[in-house]
């Protein structure tokens, strides 16, 4: 379904990604963990070309882009395969919640307006925001904004949803509502790749966990393998900062 081959990315001399190989099956939920600066967000952003990989190959659902020399239309087609949920939500500030969700359907997928509206309302109800259709992002809390962001991603009916630290800029008490929405859609069999710091959440929701450090995949496995019996020294060291039940100890 998704296949990354030898993805490399450098900023000038500094190599951020040192050749990442990754395969994700249809319907799978993959969590990417790693310390700050390890390149996990960069990797995720390479998958929809918000970052330009220097080398490698990206395949999503049979559509392949060679990163050596991608054409504009390659990038455009690749982006249509996925949807992204951002750390800073990035809702369109001048549009209401409903308009935010409709935008991609109407503008990119050319769905008739009435149909797009109907589907968008359904999705907003699904994330628990049926009463906030006409609210602008500035009138919503962080948690509500992020749930609109998730509805916006779902609306596109993408092959995969990329989550870039979806709860990292939320107040602790708002994290729960966002995670429960993600949990809900994970159960529906949508392919997801999640970069996160929420260890217990990753453990619970992901089918596969990947630990990245210094631009390389250090270890991968099921949550059980990785959290309970990590093989690599670096992984053990990283996980030691979290207590066994997954709660932060700072």
């Amino acid at each position: 379904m998704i296949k990354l081959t030898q993805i490399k990315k450098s900023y000038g001399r500094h190599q951020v990604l040192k050749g990442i190989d990754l395969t994700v099956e249809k319907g799978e939920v993959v969590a990417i963990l790693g310390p700050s600066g390890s390149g996990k967000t960069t990797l995720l952003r390479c998958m929809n070309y918000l970052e330009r990989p220097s080398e490698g190959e990206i395949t999503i659902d049979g559509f392949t882009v060679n990163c050596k020399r991608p054409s504009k239309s390659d990038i455009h087609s690749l982006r249509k395969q996925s949807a992204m949920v951002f750390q800073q939500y990035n809702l369109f500030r001048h549009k209401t919640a409903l308009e935010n969700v409709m935008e991609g359907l109407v503008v990119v997928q050319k769905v008739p307006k009435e149909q797009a509206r109907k589907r968008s309302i359904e999705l907003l109800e699904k994330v628990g925001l049926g009463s906030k259709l006409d609210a602008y992002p500035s009138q919503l809390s962080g948690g509500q904004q992020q749930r609109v962001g998730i509805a916006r991603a779902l609306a596109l009916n993408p092959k995969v949803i990329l989550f870039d630290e979806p709860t990292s800029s939320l107040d602790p008490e708002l994290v729960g509502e966002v995670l429960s929405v993600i949990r809900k859609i994970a159960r529906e069999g949508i392919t997801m790749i999640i970069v996160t710091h929420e260890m217990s959440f990753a453990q619970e929701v992901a089918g596969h966990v990947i630990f990245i450090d210094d631009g390389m995949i250090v270890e991968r496995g099921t949550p059980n393998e990785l959290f309970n019996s990590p093989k690599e020294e670096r992984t053990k060291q990283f996980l030691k900062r979290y207590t066994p039940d997954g709660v932060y100890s700072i």
Partner: protein
Amino acid sequence: MGQHQFEISYVFEYLVKLLPSLKITLLIVFSSILIGAAVGLLVALPRLYRIPVLQRLSGIYVSFFRGTPILIQLFLFYYGMPEMLKLIGIDVSRTSALYFVILTYSLHSGAYISELIRGAVAAVDRGQVEAAYAMGMSGYQAFSRIVLPQALAISIPVFANLVIGNLKDTSLAFSLGIMEMSGTARTISALSQRFVEIYIALAILYLLISLALQKLFVRLERHLFRHEPAAAAAKREPRGKRTFFRKFGSVTDIPGKEARL
């Protein structure tokens, strides 16, 4: 200078007499802002998208029109351009000076508007464009649907200053013999010798138009910023007996301008 004693009634008389020439003043302002906006957008694009050669050219254009007085630009275009065009066989010696004035003011505002667009576009959060790209929008769609509407709202206060500045600058067009408000005032005053009354009337006219424009732009800004109700509410002017003095203290002072510049 005035040989007559000051009489307030003349101020009203001249107000009425100057009014017809307001047409020319507004014609210059609005046509030059309109053309200037188109020019400004065209000039801003190469700089926004860093297009190699064009970027340099628009840089030179902007420096010239921002770095030289508009009076000199007026003369250069009015006297210089016919000579240049003669070389390639086009005769514009019979063309009305008004066209040269409009051209000069258009290019002049175009330079400022291009800088304004550049600043406003840069002020739109990068994440907005990323979200647009991530959902599969083309560069044009992302610009026209997401960036431009937000940039427009951001740029209104600066744009208002620009239009009001342009209005006042049109008073220099009399130097090419254009009968806009200031030109007319000069002519009437030369005949009647009632300088004070005429220029008071003239000042009142400029002031009234400026205030009207200012009101219009505040309203427009509020409309474009309706998605930020908190910010719009904070910008609402407090009313009181000082309002008058605040308003007349500085015509180009748009409330809320400081907040975002």
